[in-house]
């Protein structure tokens, strides 16, 4: 009485992607909450600034030299830890259109008294890189 086709073990499309389309809830931020939060945030910023301004003795001595090794090879990381999972200078646009949305920068940090750089990707339209790019472009033109 078996009505079975045992031969069906072949080509199954076992999809592993866990795509789920949840109809998004409309997030409504309480405007009163927003205003109150903004006020507190600004107060905290102002208070931070004021505390520093008052402290006149703390005129810093400058210690802002960019270490020489940063200017050597531009992709090498001299301190072992490359930007994890995001190595490589620039990423390709997901659509494969060839438009780079991000650029790679090195972040200079201090570990104790040692200087280190870490590679990071930042959006191309970030004001930080825009300055550099513009200058590069200007310099190229000259």
């Amino acid at each position, binding site marked *: 009485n078996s009505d079975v086709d045992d031969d069906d073990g072949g080509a199954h499309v076992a999809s592993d992607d866990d795509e789920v389309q949840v109809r998004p809830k409309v997030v409504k931020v309480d405007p009163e909450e927003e205003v109150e939060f903004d006020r507190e945030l600004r107060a905290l910023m102002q208070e931070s600034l004021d505390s520093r301004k008052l402290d006149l003795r703390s005129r810093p001595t400058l210690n*802002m030299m960019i270490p020489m090794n940063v200017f050597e090879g531009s992709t090498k990381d001299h301190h072992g830890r490359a930007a994890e999972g995001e190595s490589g200078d620039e990423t390709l646009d997901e659509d494969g259109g060839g438009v780079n949305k991000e650029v790679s920068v090195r972040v200079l940090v201090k570990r104790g008294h040692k200087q280190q750089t870490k590679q990071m990707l930042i959006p191309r339209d970030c004001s*930080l890189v825009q300055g550099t790019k513009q200058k590069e472009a200007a310099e190229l033109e000259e």
Partner: protein
Amino acid sequence: EETGEDESYDFGKGDFTEHACRYCGVQNPACVVRCNVPSCRKWFCNSRGNTSGSHIVNHLVRAKHKEVCLHKDSPLGETILECYNCGCRNVFLLGFISAKTESVVVLLCREPCLSVNALKDMNWDLSQWCPLIDDRCFLQWLVKVPSEQEQLRARQISAQQINKVEELWKTNPDATLEDLEKPGVDDEPQHVAFKYDDAYQYQNVFAPLVKLEADYDKMMKESQSKDNVTIRWDIGLNKKRVAYFVFPKEDNELRLVPGDELRLRYPGDANHPAWQSVGHVIKLTAQEEVALELRASQGVPVDVNHGFSVDFVWKSTSFDRMQGAMKTFAVDETSVSGYIYHHLLGHEVEVQVVRNTLPRRFGAPGLPELNASQVFAVKSVLQKPISLIQGPPGTGKTVTSAAIVYHMAKQGQGQVLVCAPSNVAVDQLAEKISATGLKVVRLCAKSREAVSSPVEHLTLHYQVRHLDTSEKSELHKLQQLKDEQGELSSSDEKKYKALKRATEREISQSADVICCTCVGAGDPRLANFRFRQVLIDESTQANEPECLIPLVLGAKQVVLVGDHCQLGPVIMCKKAARAGLAQSLFERLVILGVKPIRLQVQYRMHPALSEFPSNSFYEGTLQNGVTINERQSSGIDFPWPVPNRPMFFYVQMGQEEISASGTSYLNRTEAANVEKIVTTFLRSGVVPNQIGVITPYEGQRAYIVNYMSRNGALRQQLYKEIEVASVDSFQGREKDYIILSCVRSNEHQGIGFLNDPRRLNVALTRARYGIVVLGNPKVLSKQPLWNSLLTHYKEHECLVEGPLNNLKQSMVQFQKPKKIYN
């Protein structure tokens, strides 16, 4: 419910990882930072959720904390954010600047370092100071914003909750969001909902209910001590001591099940020292004796029989596993697929189709051919990530389930997990699935390994013992030694356990299908298993957290089988039941709009018996897969009032009484008439195991058993073999003939247990060949559903009274049914 021996098991999987956002639970290292204030050190993410600022900024502002540290697995590694020049760590002052020519950036404070003129001369571009906190959020390239998916699956915390929990942290830094919503001791618990914002809210609602039920269960079981128990001693096949004794039970109270743990005590006398030992219930005999297998065989006072005491040893295992599953559901995003997650919480999810090649035929080897509605069910289920199958009585849901599991297993998506709340149901299903040729492992709780099972050859412990290969000889040797001596030296015990665990793992991993109870799915032996496809049978008899246990092992495709028109989960604590713990996940999904696929052909009842249940509980959709001829009890001479309708309602006017225990009811005239009906059946050639007597009251059950064995007209033994039980314990089973004794007969009080339509449905749908209902129509007719049942019997000339050998149609007047108010 069952217990195992996994007290030491730690539900670590379900715990918060340390770096999870303390507001929403997001734990992606690229998205979180730690507040660096020494007394705080909490982690927060950079998503806004439902608030205007991101969670980390919210925290810093509310708590007035100003320093943070990045995660060690973030692109910059574990880094305290500070001014490169002066070391200032106030994030409200920090921002990035870049070098004039190179792609080098550095953190600098706005005051005073940014205003030092000398910087301009040093290759730094001061015109583009880029603050760390922008638009109430950390720079998104430094601290990533969790993906939309991650955010949707996180706890949906509100600004109000943030303010409250921040307030709480000022006095109790370790407080959790759950603490905010903890009800006071006397508060009614929060009622279950249909939809939940997130799995944390779900956990907040269910965890207290599970706790209530656990507390109640513990209190009740531990208060069940009995003194002056008389013991009959025996030795089991495994050479262990078994104590037999009677452990009386009351209505609605403790029901012992195999696997329960009891402590047996003897106070000692002139010739015997005081003694006690713990054991597992291995069976309950028809004579209502408990068989308790003792753990230790030494020093047992086997020459004594009287004066023992019995206590219940309560175990929290099943409740712990429910709590663990809810936690895992919330914090482990691999616990179930995103689709299942949102669906279970009642979120609106776009319909998803499972892309699987469908088999050409939907039956399976070793199973009966499927009917149209069964084929439809198998086919639909295979294409959907979540489906409900409703199996009315006798419609072959076990066969349908087995066919579904067969096809799932053939899809090559890994092992299939098959569960049910009760061991009986798991065994039945395991047997059917095994018949298709799939490799099945039936995982039993450790405490039930001594309990006999119809599918023993499929159980993991049996397979481990009988795996007869040379590599296993070491394990065999140790097992033998252990069996003979009762215990092993500690080094041998260690070796034995390791070998056993490895063998268990090997056997389980090679199976196509693992079968266990819902609670059993939380067994530590399955802790590292993942199951994408899960089928839960009898799911309408499990409470939600119980149902969740098998699901959080990685479910992507879920099939819930059950019937929400039959009895639901048993919840002992009234408070928890009132708050909705007695509603199954299946039912909630139905309410949320998931349409169950209904199996429509019943193969159990004589067509005359299925008519009323079909019309009253299944909108008349139940078709008969058996004919009147196939259910004709040939050669049985029984006074059915209408020959082709093997059913009648036998009018009883005898009074109900309170039973001796004071907590139950009995009805002597009904009991006497039950005996007469049983005797008539037996005389006409029906054998005892064809007959079932159902009564909703323990008092009446005990009375009938007693009455029949003392007053039965035939041999006592015949009556002893007849099963007399509650409606609830007949669910899922069938008998050829059913006698239903309703007991309640009073003008003023209600009809108690009989009020639940689902219980009436179960009672009426157990019989294959014939049914006799005994009750008082005057009382029962007040309830609308009973009124229509009585009317149905009356219309078919099956409402009768008088002596059994001279039944006459009854003219008793019904009362007007009370209106139902919703």
